[in-house]
């Protein structure tokens, strides 16, 4: 591998786009460099479930042809991207990390996929994830876990560990993830990358295989706030195929990422999302980052969101309930795995065997939990009550945003834990999402940016920024400002300090 190629995988998406647009480097060369990188390191990282080499090269070629003929290119034309395997892509295997969809090639693109293709983005392949996005470590993938590029013995976060790891390992400059309870943000935090959950309804869910319909959102994963903003601007916007998508202009997140002035901005630290339960090093880096924000001219206030301690419980009632219904379609009748159809078994038996075989433990667990929470006699106390708590959490946000412009917290309570450490304790696993879940419940946008390494283990720590609904631009404004200040403090991007992978020199 040439030094030039290695350089290309170290570039930001914005830089790569500029290189393509100017004609300095071809899209084919860029995708080739990343395919080489994948070959080199993905045996260890296992970020990808499927690499679409032919498709990627064809897309790259098309971009080069378009550029050569003088056509206008999109802002990210020719830039490679990794797509979480929960988004459909026509003709390409989409497994959602599950055996029940092994080999399934959808006949249709998700709207996000279509927008990426239309923008000339080069989709490298599909990334690993917890099965049907249920998890915080990517250990629940039916195809084996993804490994954190910072320490291959550790989890990359979940459910979108593959997308975050691909970006952190320089296998792709950017990725698409989906976030239902933190599945973009928490992996971003533990891999030292940037991840954003847009306002609910900001990005189309058509073709996003549903986990919890009222919580799911697709969003950008990248190594810089600007890159995330560029990607956000490509995928966001109203979609007539998604009745829950917002019919309003996308906030100008790219401009916001460029505007790094946050003087006078009121930043609220959520009392319920710090302190006890948060790893010491995580809390320390968070406090330091808050100090940095003050140094940038922001006003920091302490706010209380008194119902946030109930967010986890409400979430683990609402999500399984919606998921149990969303996953009912996986029954072996119309697509996917079918087990036990020997000509004698009844349809009920075949459905039951198919699902028991095709779904992993965590999925089975949550389906039953959701079935229980919706059952006659339990609905009011469980699902019904959870939806009311949800309203109270949304009101907490509203009240908080009445006195601040954004809220901040650590993204996750700990740094990356070891593979296998929390597998036998579902509740302990669920606690990883304690800080990210409130924003999903309220439908408000949130971002995680890397703010350093925890002193005790040298692993990445993320800070979460939360903004009111439709104010996604504020995330990018504050995030870019903090990022720039930290970069100045560190002298080099955090990821430069990650261990080398594969055989290449860093």
């Amino acid at each position: 591998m040439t030094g030039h190629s290695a350089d290309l995988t170290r570039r930001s998406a914005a830089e790569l786009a500029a290189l393509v647009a100017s004609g300095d480097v071809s899209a084919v060369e860029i995708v080739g460099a990343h395919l080489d990188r994948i070959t080199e390191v993905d045996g260890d990282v296992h970020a990808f479930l499927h690499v679409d080499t032919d498709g990627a090269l064809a897309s790259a070629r098309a971009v080069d042809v378009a550029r050569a003929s003088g056509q206008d290119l999109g802002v990210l034309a020719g830039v490679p991207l990794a797509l979480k395997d929960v988004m459909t892509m026509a003709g390409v295997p989409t497994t959602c990390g599950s055996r029940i969809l092994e080999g399934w090639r959808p006949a249709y693109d998700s709207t996000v996929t279509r927008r990426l293709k239309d923008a000339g983005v080069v989709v490298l392949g599909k990334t690993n994830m917890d099965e049907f996005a249920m998890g915080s470590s990517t250990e629940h993938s039916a195809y084996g876990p993804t490994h954190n590029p910072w320490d291959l013995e550790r989890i990359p976060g979940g459910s979108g560990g593959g997308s975050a790891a691909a970006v952190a390992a320089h296998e792709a400059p950017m990725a698409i993830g989906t976030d239902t309870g933190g599945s973009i943000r928490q992996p971003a935090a533990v891999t030292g990358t940037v991840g954003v959950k847009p306002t609910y309804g900001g990005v189309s869910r058509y073709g996003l295989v549903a986990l919890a319909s009222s919580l799911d959102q697709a969003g950008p994963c990248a190594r810089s706030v600007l890159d995330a903003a560029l990607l956000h601007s490509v995928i966001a916007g109203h979609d007539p195929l998604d009745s829950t998508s917002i019919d309003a202009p996308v906030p100008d997140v790219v401009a916001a990422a460029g505007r790094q002035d946050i003087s006078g901005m009121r930043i609220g630290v959520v009392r319920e999302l710090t302190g006890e339960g948060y790893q010491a090093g995580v809390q320390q880096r968070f406090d330091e980052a808050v100090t940095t924000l003050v140094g940038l001219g922001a006003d920091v206030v302490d706010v209380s969101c008194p119902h946030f301690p109930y967010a986890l419980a409400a979430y683990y009632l609402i999500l399984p309930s919606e998921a149990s219904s969303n996953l009912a379609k996986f029954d072996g009748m119309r697509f996917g795995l079918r087990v036990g159809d020997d000509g004698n078994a009844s349809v009920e038996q075949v459905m039951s065997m198919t699902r028991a075989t095709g779904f992993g433990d965590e999925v089975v667990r949550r389906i039953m939990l959701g079935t229980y929470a919706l059952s006659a006699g339990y609905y009011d106390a469980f699902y019904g009550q959870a939806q009311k708590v949800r309203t109270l959490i949304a009101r907490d946000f509203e009240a908080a945003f009445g006195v601040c412009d954004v809220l901040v917290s650590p993204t996750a309570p700990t740094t990356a834990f070891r593979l296998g450490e929390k597998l036998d304790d579902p509740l302990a696993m669920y606690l990883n999402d304690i800080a990210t879940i409130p924003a999903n419940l309220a439908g408000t946008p949130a971002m995680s940016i890397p703010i350093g390494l925890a002193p005790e283990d040298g692993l990445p720590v993320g800070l979460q920024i939360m903004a009111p609904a439709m104010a996604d631009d504020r995330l990018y404004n504050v995030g870019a400002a903090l990022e720039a200040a930290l970069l100045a403090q560190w002298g080099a991007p955090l990821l430069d300090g990650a261990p080398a992978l594969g055989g290449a020199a860093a």
Partner: protein
Amino acid sequence: MTTRTVEEVVPYDDVVLRYDPVLGLEVHVELGTATKMFCACPTVFGAPPNSQTCPTCLGLPGSLPVLNGVAVESAIKIGLALNCTIATWCQFARKNYFYPDMPKNFQTSQYAEPICVDGFLEIQVETDEGLKPFRIEIERAHMEEDTGKSTHQGGSTGRIHGADYSLVDYNRAGIPLIEIVTKPIEGTGRDAPEVARAYVTALRDLLRALGVSDVKMEQGSLRCDANVSLRSSPDAPLGTRTETKNVNSLRSVEHAVRYEMTRQAARLNVGERIVQETRHWHEDTGVTTSGRSKEEAEDYRYFPEPDLPPIAPAARWVEELRAGLPELPAARRTRLMQEWGVNDFEMQSMANAGALELIESTVGAGATPSGARKWWMGELARVANDRDAELGDLPITPAEVARVESLVAEGALNDKLARQVIDGVLGGEGDPDSVVAARGLAVVSDDTSLLAAIDDAIAADPDTAEKVRGGKQAAAGALIGAVMKATRGQADAARVRELLMSRLS
């Protein structure tokens, strides 16, 4: 547990002596929209299997629903026509259960917040004691989606039992349905079967008048599930009900209700309890058989549909729809009764004969109401009956009937000749005037030919002529008859009488 044994029944009269029936009727209407409820697939009946499907109506991963605005409009119109309150806010809910004809294994329907509630329909029921008015209270009408269609292979009868496997076509999956549910229908007594039939008939006519569906029971665009229970008296608590499906015609509605009453009574009479279950009506054998047991009422785990925002119809929109409703059958009925001077019973007879529109059109073409009624309910009804056809299928138009009637009114034809003209039109000989010309059926009304025939008749029967001269007017009938015969019925009978009397005076 399913059973194919035919159960005991009790004579109907005994049933109504001992028990008070309570009914609940659920009618599903397939809307005649161009596209499905939640996707833009076409809804054409009879298309090649799975040719009108997409990720959404196939329930493929990642698909999402988008609501058909015309379906909402139709739902509101139906609610208004049924005197319902239209919800100011409602939403969809998921009804969760597994079945191969349901692509998502949940049906997107409405549960706690339906779009229409608390209405009624006034109907007229034909009973042994004549026409009785009845008011059916409507609990609700709500929107939902239809399922796919499965055919069962391998068994001998094409039915589910004994089938080895099934084949599913999802063309029908996702077609908009409106479900209309009555409140418990009490106080029908022995007329329960007739009430049920009259209600479904009236509902069908209402929906047709609204233009929201082609309401063809035989094609499945109108379906009825009949819930029946018996109790010892109107004051007793409600008995256990059964739900009977596969009721595919108006006649089946009546027969299925009657059968279920006799079947349940037979069990109750010997102290057996009624199993709460879904039963299947067989029109050929006239019985219901046991189907899916509902002993444990299925837990559908309803929850609000997160993929669809709520619906809050603006008051102004609802009022616009209300103002735009066509004349509904009840209002039309009242208007026609007034215009035609007929009573309830006569009205119902015309409705039953399927003659209302035909008569109305005939009046529109210039006939008098009584003239139009006379032909359609008399001669033409008899012909239709003989041919085992519907009135509307006869090869004669309202305009043609009106023409015949006007020829009679102006004296060009008498009744007997008119029947021959009608005969000719039905036989394809042409329009009334052509038939009159071709067959030479004009009334003879010139006095000269009439007088000639009269004189012949007098000469042939001098005794009768003498009696008439003597003052016995009634005897003239024989002479008039002879003249009519001589003129092959084409003489104007009244004129013949006049001329005859003056001849013999």
